[in-house]
């Protein structure tokens, strides 16, 4: 399941959706949150996520397809929020179920690494009357190298 949405998500609901009766031996999950990015009070800060409807979903599907090709997975769930968020809000959920923990951990890690560098999302931080677009982190691109076959 791949969802790009403004609404918040419930981790326990997504977790349960990953379980396959008599098959699942491991579930690995990652949740990304909006961390404090300013000295101003939380109420003076906001955070915006823009995406490219149509392309973003394709990007995520391609990443999940690649994970499925690399590891024997039972199910994958990716939920990414867009729109206006606040500090401490949930941004992204990646969950992977498998028979064993190694592939669940690795696939979850792989999907997050690729999501950071290969999915059409852009973050903008606002504090008071100032706002700026977050610049890409070169470490994110370097993180992909460890997955090269």
């Amino acid at each position: 399941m791949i969802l790009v949405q403004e609404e918040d998500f419930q981790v326990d609901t997504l977790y349960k959706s990953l379980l396959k009766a008599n098959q699942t031996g491991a579930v690995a999950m990652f949740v990304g949150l909006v961390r404090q990015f300013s000295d101003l009070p939380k109420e003076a800060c906001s955070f915006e996520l823009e995406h490219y409807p149509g392309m973003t979903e394709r990007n995520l599907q391609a990443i999940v397809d690649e994970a499925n090709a690399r590891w024997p997975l039972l199910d994958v769930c990716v939920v990414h929020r867009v729109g206006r968020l606040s500090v401490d809000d949930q941004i992204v959920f990646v969950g992977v179920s498998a028979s064993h923990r190694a592939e669940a951990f690795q696939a979850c890690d792989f999907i997050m690494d690729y999501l950071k560098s290969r999915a059409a999302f852009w973050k903008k931080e606002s504090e008071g009357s100032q706002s700026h677009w977050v610049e890409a982190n070169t470490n994110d691109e370097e993180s992909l190298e460890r997955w090269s076959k």
Partner: protein
Amino acid sequence: MPKVRVVFFASLKESIGQSEYIAELALPLSISELKHQLANELDNGQALLAKGIQSSIDFEFARDLDVVPNTVNEVAFFPPVTGG
């Protein structure tokens, strides 16, 4: 010449001052050639030539040397992605 929808996102959209533009293009042409054409046609189009600007052709990531085909529906330009 065919008209093609070109869309812009995030900081590039703000630099250019518009989210989309209908371009008349002599297809096929490369992404790099398209960037330079738009840089001349749009008031603030020079922003397209900034280092790191990325692109897509019909929702697939593209590079400067990739060719925009005759069958194209939409080209996009944007800064490096920052999701997650």
